[in-house]
C-alpha cells in the first residue's frame, strides 16, 4: 500500500533505499552466491573452499538475522520494497531454520564419502546458498510477484541439485522434477494472473485485494485461489502434487534430499499460511475444506505408500508426504495456536528429518546400499547408531518421549480446539483419521529398527563410522529429547511470532 509521500518517484526511491537496510541477510546470501560461483571458476579443484565459504556465509547470515530478531521480536513487521516483502519476526524465525538447514546440509555432504564429494564443485555450495536465499524471500513474501520469483529461485536451483550426481538416474530425476515443477508453476502463475486481474493489486495482504475479490463471483474466485494454492502444494509435496517426491528423493544425493525435504517445504507452509491468513479467505470456507481433504489424503497416501518401500530414501519420501499432511493440520485450525503448533512441528521436523538422513548417509557408507534389507543386524553391531535410529523413527512416528510426540499432540489439540469452536464434522474426521494414521506410520517407521535389531546378516562393512559421525548424531538427537521434556521456551518464542488468525 502506498502512502501519499511515497507516490512520487523520488519518494519511492527513498523507500527503496530505506528498505535496503533491512535485507542484510539476503544481501549476504546473494553476494555469497555470486562470490562462490566466481571462486568456482578460479579454483576448480578445491571444493573445500565451497564448503567453508557457504558455512561462513550461513553463519554471517545468522548473525544478521539475530540483529533483526532483536529489532523485530517485540514489534510489528515492516513492509519493504513498496509492498513486495514483509519483514517480521515470523520470517526471521524461519530464516534461522533455513540457515541451520544450510549448515547441516554442508555437514551431511562432508560425510558423503561417495563419488559425489570428489566430483563436487564449488557450484554445488553456491546453489545451496541460492536455495536458502529463495526460501528467505519466500517466507517474507506478501506479494504475488515476489512469491512467484522466490518459488522459481528455489525450484530452478533444486532442478540442478537433483542432477548433481551427473548420472543417468540423476538426469532423469532432474528432468522429471523440472517437468512437474514447470507444470505446477504454470498453474500457479495462471491463478496469480487471475487474482491480479480480479483485484488489480499484487499485494495479497492489502485491503484492496480483499475488497476487490469480494466483488468477484464465488466460482471464479475459488478457481483462481485453487490454482494459486496448487503451486504451494507442489513445493510442500502435498497430494495431489506429491508424485515427483519419491523419484526425486531416490535419485538425488542424500544430503540434497535432506535439504529438499525440509527447506522448500517449510517455506511453502509459511507462504501458504500468509496467503490463507490474509483475511480474504475468511469468507470462502471451501478452500479450508479442500485443504482438510488434502491433509487427510496426504497422510493416507504417504503412509500407505511408505509401507511397501524397500529403498529407505523412497520410504522417507513417502513419509515426508505424510508429514506434510500432519503439518497442514496446524493451518486447518485457523488459530494462532494452530500456527504455533505448525511452526513447532516444522522445527521438530527439521531436526528429525536431518537426523534421519544423516543416519541414512551413515548406513549407506557402511553398507554401500540404500536398500533397507542390507541394514540387517547393523543395530546390534553399532549400538549407538541403532539407538539413534530408534529415537529418530519413533520421533517421526510421534511416539513419546520425543519431540515428535509433542509436536503431534499439540497440532492435534489445536485441531481439536478448532473443532470444538466450529463443530465442523470434517475437522473431526481429520482428527480421528489423522490419529489413526499414527498406527499406519508406526508400521514402516519401525521397519528400519526392526531390520537393524531383529535380523542378522553377515555383510562386508566397507567403512567404520568415526567420532565425527557420532558427534553430529548426538547434536541432532539431543534436541529431540530435550524438546520433549522442556519445550516451554521454544513454544514461547514461537507464540510471539505466530500469525494472528481472527
Amino acid at each position, binding site marked *: 500500500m502506498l502512502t501519499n509521500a511515497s507516490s512520487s518517484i523520488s519518494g519511492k526511491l527513498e523507500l527503496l533505499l530505506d528498505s535496503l537496510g533491512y535485507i542484510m541477510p539476503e544481501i549476504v546470501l546473494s553476494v555469497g552466491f555470486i562470490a562462490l560461483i566466481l571462486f568456482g571458476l578460479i579454483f576448480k579443484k578445491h571444493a573445500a573452499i565451497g564448503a567453508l565459504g557457504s558455512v561462513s556465509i550461513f553463519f554471517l547470515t545468522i548473525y544478521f538475522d539475530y540483529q533483526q530478531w532483536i529489532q523485530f521480536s517485540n514489534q510489528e513487521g515492516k513492509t519493504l520494497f513498496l509492498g513486495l516483502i514483509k519483514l517480521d519476526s515470523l520470517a526471521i524465525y524461519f530464516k534461522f531454520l533455513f540457515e541451520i538447514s544450510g549448515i547441516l546440509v554442508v555437514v551431511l555432504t562432508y560425510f558423503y564419502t561417495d563419488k559425489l564429494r570428489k566430483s563436487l564443485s564449488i557450484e554445488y555450495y553456491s546453489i545451496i546458498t541460492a536455495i536458502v536465499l529463495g526460501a528467505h524471500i519466500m517466507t517474507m513474501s506478501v506479494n504475488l510477484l515476489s512469491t512467484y520469483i522466490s518459488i522459481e529461485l528455489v525450484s530452478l536451483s533444486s532442478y540442478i541439485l537433483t542432477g548433481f550426481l551427473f548420472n543417468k538416474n540423476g538426469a532423469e530425476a532432474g528432468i522429471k522434477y523440472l517437468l512437474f515443477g514447470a507444470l505446477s508453476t504454470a498453474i500457479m502463475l495462471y491463478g496469480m494472473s487471475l487474482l491480479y486481474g480480479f483485484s488489480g493489486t499484487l499485494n495479497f495482504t492489502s485491503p484492496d485485494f480483499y475488497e476487490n475479490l469480494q466483488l468477484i463471483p464465488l466460482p471464479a474466485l475459488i478457481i483462481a485461489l485453487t490454482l494459486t494454492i496448487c503451486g504451494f502444494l507442489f513445493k510442500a509435496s502435498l497430494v495431489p502434487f506429491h508424485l515427483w517426491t519419491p523419484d526425486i528423493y531416490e535419485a538425488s544425493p542424500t544430503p540434497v534430499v535432506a535439504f529438499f525435504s525440509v527447506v522448500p517445504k517449510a517455506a511453502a507452509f509459511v507462504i501458504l499460511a500468509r496467503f490463507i491468513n490474509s483475511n480474504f479467505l475468511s469468507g470462502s470456507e471451501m478452500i479450508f475444506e479442500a485443504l482438510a481433504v488434502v491433509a487427510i489424503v496426504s497422510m493416507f497416501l504417504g503412509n500407505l505408500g511408505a509401507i511397501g518401500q524397500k529403498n529407505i530414501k523412497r520410504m522417507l519420501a513417502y513419509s515426508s508426504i505424510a508429514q506434510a499432511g500432519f503439518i497442514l493440520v496446524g493451518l486447518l485450525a485457523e*488459530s*494462532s*495456536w494452530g500456527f*504455533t503448533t505448525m511452526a513447532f512441528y516444522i522445527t521438530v521436523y527439521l531436526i528429525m528429518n536431518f537426523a534421519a538422513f544423516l543416519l541414512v548417509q551413515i548406513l549407506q557408507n557402511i553398507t554401500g546400499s540404500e536398500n533397507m534389507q542390507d541394514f540387517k543386524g547393523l543395530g*546390534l553391531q553399532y*549400538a549407538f547408531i541403532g539407538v539413534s535410529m*530408534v529415537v529418530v523413527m*519413533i520421533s517421526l512416528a510421534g*511416539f*513419546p*518421549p520425543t519431540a515428535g510426540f509433542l509436536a503431534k*499432540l499439540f497440532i*492435534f*489439540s489445536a485441531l*481439536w*480446539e478448532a473443532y*470444538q469452536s466450529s*463443530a465442523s464434522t470434517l475437522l*473431526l474426521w481429520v*482428527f*480421528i483419521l489423522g*490419529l*489413526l494414521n*499414527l*498406527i499406519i506410520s*508406526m*508400521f514402516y517407521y*519401525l521397519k528400519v529398527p*526392526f531390520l537393524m*535389531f*531383529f535380523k542378522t546378516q553377515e555383510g562386508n562393512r566397507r567403512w567404520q563410522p568415526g567420532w565425527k559421525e557420532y558427534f553430529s548424531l548426538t547434536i541432532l538427537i539431543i534436541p529431540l529429547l530435550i524438546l520433549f521434556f*522442556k*519445550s*516451554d521456551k521454544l*513454544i*514461547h518464542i514461537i*507464540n510471539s511470532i*505466530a500469525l494472528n488468525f481472527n
Partner: protein
Amino acid sequence: MTEHILSALIFVPLFFALILLLFPSENKLSFKTGTLLATSIQLFIALVLFSRVQVGNNLLKGVDGNFQFVEKYDWISLNLGNFGRLSIDYFLGVDGLNISMVLLTAIVLFIAAISSWTIKKFTKGYFLLFLVLDASIMGSFLALDFFLFFLFFEFMLLPMYFLIGIWGGIRRNYASIKFFLYTLLGSVFILIIMIGLYTSVIDPAETAVNLGIVDNLKDVQELNVKFVQDALQKEQIPASLQVHTFSIPAMMDVKNYVPGSFFALGSDYSVLGLPARLFAFLLIFIGFAIKLPAVPFHTWLPDAHVEAPTPISVILAGILLKIGGYGILRIGYSIFPEGGIHFAWWVGFIGVVSIIYGALNALAMKDLKKLIAYSSVSHMGFVLLGIASMTIEGINGAIFQMFSHGLISSALFLVAGVIYDRTKDRMIENYSGLAILMPAFTVAVIITFFASLGLPGFSGFVAEVLVFLGSFNSAISNGLLPKWFTVVAIMSLVLTAGYYLWTIQRMFLGKTWTRNKEFVVDLKDLNYREYFMFVPLITLMFLFGIFPSLMLNIINISADHFIDFVLANGNSNLNFLNK
C-alpha cells in the same frame, strides 16, 4: 516437606540403567547384579511405602484428591493464546487403587530380575531395556497426571517390543510387531480422549492464580476453588484465562469442565449416536481392554506370551495386563462414571465371555505356555466382572484379583520357563511322569496350579469369591448385572480345574516318558535360583490367601469411596444426559 519416595520408585531403575550404560558390555555379571540390586532397592522402597500408608476413616479417599505421598510439580506450562494456558504436572500419588499394584510391580520385577539370570545374548541391552521398562511400569501406576500416565503407558511398548523381538522365541518378529501395533491402537483411542479431555477441563487452583485471585498456588483455599468453579459454570471466566490441565483428579470433578466444551456434562456433542461422554468411556474402555486383554481384543496376548522370554512373560502377565484393569478404574470409571453405569452390562458381559472363552481355549491348548496365556485371559475376565458390578465386594475382588493373579501368573510362567530352559520344548504331550524326575518342581507346579484354580487358602480363592459375591450382589443392590452372569462365571471354575488337573495328570503323573530320550537327562530338578523365585511367590500366595486383610484393609477404604463416587456421580450424570 514433600517426600520423594514415589519418585524414588521410578528413578532408582533409571539411575541404575544410566550407571550400567557406562559398564563395558563384556562384563555380563555386572548387569545382572546391577539389575537385581536396582529391583531389590525398589522392592524395599515399595515395602516401606506399603507399611507407611495410613489407613483410617477419612484417609485414602482418592477421589477427593486425598492421595498420600503426593508429589506435584509444574512440568510443562504453555500459553495457548486465545485458548488460555496448558499445564502439565509431574503429579504422583498413591491410594487404595494403586498401592497394591505398586507393591506387585516391585515384587514381580524382583522375581523377573532373578529369572533373567539365564539371558546370554546381548546382556547389556537386555538389562538396560529391563530397567527402563521397570521405570515406565512403575510410573504408569503412580502417575496422576493424564499426560504423565500416557507417557509411561505408551513408552512401555518400546522396551517390550525389543525385549520380545530380540530375545524371544522363533516367531518373535511377528509377535513383537503384533503386540506393538495392537496395543498402539489402544493407546491412540486413549490419546484421542486425552486431547479432548484436557481442552475441556481446567485446573481451578491454577486458574485462580492465573486470574489473580491468589498470588501463590500454595495459598489456594477450598473457598477459592469453589469460587472459580462457580464462575466457570456461569461462564464468567474468559477462555484466554483458563488453565487447562491433565490432572486426573481435576478431570473427575464435573464442575471443572468448561461449559459447552466437548466433554462437559451438558455437552450437545454426540458421536455415532452416543453422547460424547459415553462415547469417551467406550473408547477408553476399549483402549484398556486391549491391554487387559479382554475377549475379543485378546489375540495379541497368546503370541506375545509364547514368544517372549520367560522373565518378560512374567512381567507381561504379572503386571502389564494389570495396567489395563487399573486404567479402566482410574481413568474410565473415575472420569466418566456414567459410562460405567450405562455400559455395566456390557463390561460384565465381556468379563464373563473372557472368563469362559479363555478357559475353553486353555483347555484346548497343547503348548503349556499358551495354556497359561489363555488362563490369564480367563482370570482377567474376573477383574472386569468385579469392576462392572460396582459393589464393594466386586471392586475389592477385582483389585485383589489383579494383585493375586500377578503373583500366581508370574509363578505359572516360571513353571513354563523351567521346562523350556531345560529342553526348549513346551508341548504338553511330549512329557509324562515328570514327578519322578523333578519332585520339588512338581510340588511347586501343583501348588501354583491349585492356587490359580482358586483353592481355598490361596489368594486367588479370596479374590474370586469376592468377585462372585460382588457380581451376585449387584443384581440385588444396584441392578447393574443380571444374576446369570455370576452363574455362568462360576461354571468356569470347573473348566479351570479341568485344564489344570488334566495338565498335571498328563505331564507329571504316570510313567516317566519324554518324546525325546535326551530330555530325561536335561530335566533336572529345581536349582537354587529357581527355588529363590518360587518360594517367595508361593509364600505370598499363601500369606494373602490366609490374611487377605493385609491388603484388603487398604483397598477397601478407597474402593468404598470409589463406589460411592461412581454411583452418585454416574447416576446424576446419567439423569442429566437423559433429560
